[in-house]
């Protein structure tokens, strides 16, 4: 934080300001509370934010709009859709494709990854946050380095590892793979969150006769709910939207997750964009719902560790 003396110029600025005010002797500039801006600045801020919000929202709305068009070439003439908008595509996707079974698979895999991943990330995060043990720094480094693994280097050897363990084409295999990609960041994030919980709480728990695990489970986890929510969300999203691992490790079509299923649409339906758009919208809805449930924790959860360090 310190680095340089931030306000080394403070001695001369006030005098300058004072002389400036005295010299021009302006009749009292209206004082605004800090954090509020002049009408012009506020209008500008609103303008920028509205523009940014439009840019952020438009592609998603556009996809929804395309999904309403009954014809597969409708995306080229979006103007025509207005006249013939229909929910038929959604019905077709739900009724005539494997969408529901893909959805179920994704739910199993993403749910399993979330529960398993957050649990082991939390224990590890707690261990590195509270305990000093030999191997702590190597562990932290390996968590950081695991983040950097390009999938290209892992995907082939992982394939053989899973094959040897008999986990290829199983839910648990994919859950383990996803856990290994999501857990390092989650453990990192949760460590930051646990750091913000006073150690006195642990000590009180220990004095009252709780084991280290008891302290963790009964005292710290309930207090860390915002951090856990963010970690859970991150894990869920990682698993829900992942393409390359799922398409390599899930071989039989009844085990496809949504992301893989969607890519098979292109050939299967000869690029029926309208159906793909409808499917995409259906995929996006549940995860966006989860996102908005946890979003108010996002700010605290994400930056707890970083802001403190």
């Amino acid at each position, binding site marked *: 934080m310190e680095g340089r003396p931030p306000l080394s110029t403070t001695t001369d600025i006030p005098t300058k300001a004072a002389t400036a005010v005295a010299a021009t002797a302006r009749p009292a500039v209206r004082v605004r509370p800090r954090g509020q801006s002049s009408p012009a600045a506020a209008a500008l801020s609103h303008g920028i934010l509205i523009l*940014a919000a439009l840019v*952020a929202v438009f592609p998603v709305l556009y996809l929804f709009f395309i999904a309403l068009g009954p014809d597969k070439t409708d995306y080229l003439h979006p103007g025509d859709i207005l006249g013939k908008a229909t929910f038929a595509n959604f019905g077709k996707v739900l009724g005539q494709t494997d969408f529901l079974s893909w959805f179920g698979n994704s739910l199993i895999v993403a749910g399993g990854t979330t529960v398993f991943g957050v649990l082991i990330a939390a224990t590890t995060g707690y261990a590195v946050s509270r305990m000093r*043990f030999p191997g702590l720094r190597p562990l932290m480094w390996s*968590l950081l380095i695991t983040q950097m693994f*390009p*999938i290209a280097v892992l*995907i082939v*050897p992982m394939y053989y590892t899973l094959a040897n363990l008999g986990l290829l084409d199983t839910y648990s295999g994919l859950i383990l793979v996803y856990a290994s990609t999501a857990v390092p960041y989650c453990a990192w994030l949760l460590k930051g969150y646990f750091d913000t919980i006073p150690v006195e709480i642990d000590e009180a728990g220990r004095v009252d006769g709780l084991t280290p695990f008891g302290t963790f489970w009964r005292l710290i986890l309930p207090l860390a709910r915002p951090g856990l929510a963010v970690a859970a969300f991150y894990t869920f999203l990682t698993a829900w939207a992942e393409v390359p691992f799922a398409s390599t490790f899930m071989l039989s079509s009844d085990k496809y997750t949504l992301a893989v299923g*969607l890519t098979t649409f292109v050939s299967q339906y000869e690029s029926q964009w309208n159906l793909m758009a409808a499917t995409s919208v259906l995929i996006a809805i549940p995860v966006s719902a989860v996102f908005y449930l946890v979003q108010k924790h996002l700010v605290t959860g994400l930056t707890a560790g970083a802001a403190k360090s």
Partner: protein
Amino acid sequence: MVERLKLSYSRHWYAYAMAAPVVIVLGVLVAYPLGRGIYLTLTDANSLNVGHTVGVNHIPDTFKFVGLQNYADVLWGQGSYDRFWSHFVWTILWTVICVTLTYGSGLGLALLMNRQLRGRTAYRLLLILPWAVPTFVTVFSWRLMLADGGMVNTLLGALHLPQPSWLEDPLAQKAAAILVNTWCGVPFMMVSLLGGLQSIPAELYEAAEMDGATGWQRFRYVTLPGLRAVSSTVILLGVIWTFNQFVIIFLLFGNNAPDVQILVTWAYQLGFGQQPRDYAQSASYGIILLSILIVFTTFYQRWLKRNDQGVI
């Protein structure tokens, strides 16, 4: 030595017990594959000579050890400029441009939203939408919008601007990739930096204002130093994630756009997108990628330490 191990175990057994699940999972699914991946880079393995099972017959491995030949071939073999260095330069450019753009826009939006403004919550909910929707869904939407005769070009046409062929022309492809990645990456930066801004004590601003600091000075000497911890983390993560960004380029262009492939997607294409699949070369790219990132992180960490503030 054994005594010390024993002592350390009895003192720290619960710490080890709590870290064990992660260590086991990472060990089995990351460390072991990494070891095997490194071994593969020293061989000439491809999908023709790797052992596999056809029906009841098991065909054993027939690939052989070739030493460091793969690395030599990738780095300075014939045509290595087209195969490696052009992608390397583009990957670096891509990372720098994307991280700068996402960080800059994220910081700008976070600063705007940190003021007392009507409808702050509504803006935040709308602005994080690109993060809330799975990437492959939004990339698909962008693909429709960027297609010839799609939404983007219609809009550009209405404004009498040139309408590049976003998904085919090499330069336009790169611009499109950066655009989409920035669009996807801004919400994370914005939310993290907003958290950082909110953790700066208001007293610092009051003190600065008392001392007559201008808006720019308050930003330069209070806001930026206050954000340093958050910034160093999100920039590191941003660099790692962008450098390894797979989904956006893969789904936006598929396999038919050699110019826009960054090293990760290029390595995947060597290993999975062609026949025969060249596992050894693909893994060599992977190891080179990993080394670049580790070197970067080490220097970055050292540089942060010098400013008295490491990530670890």
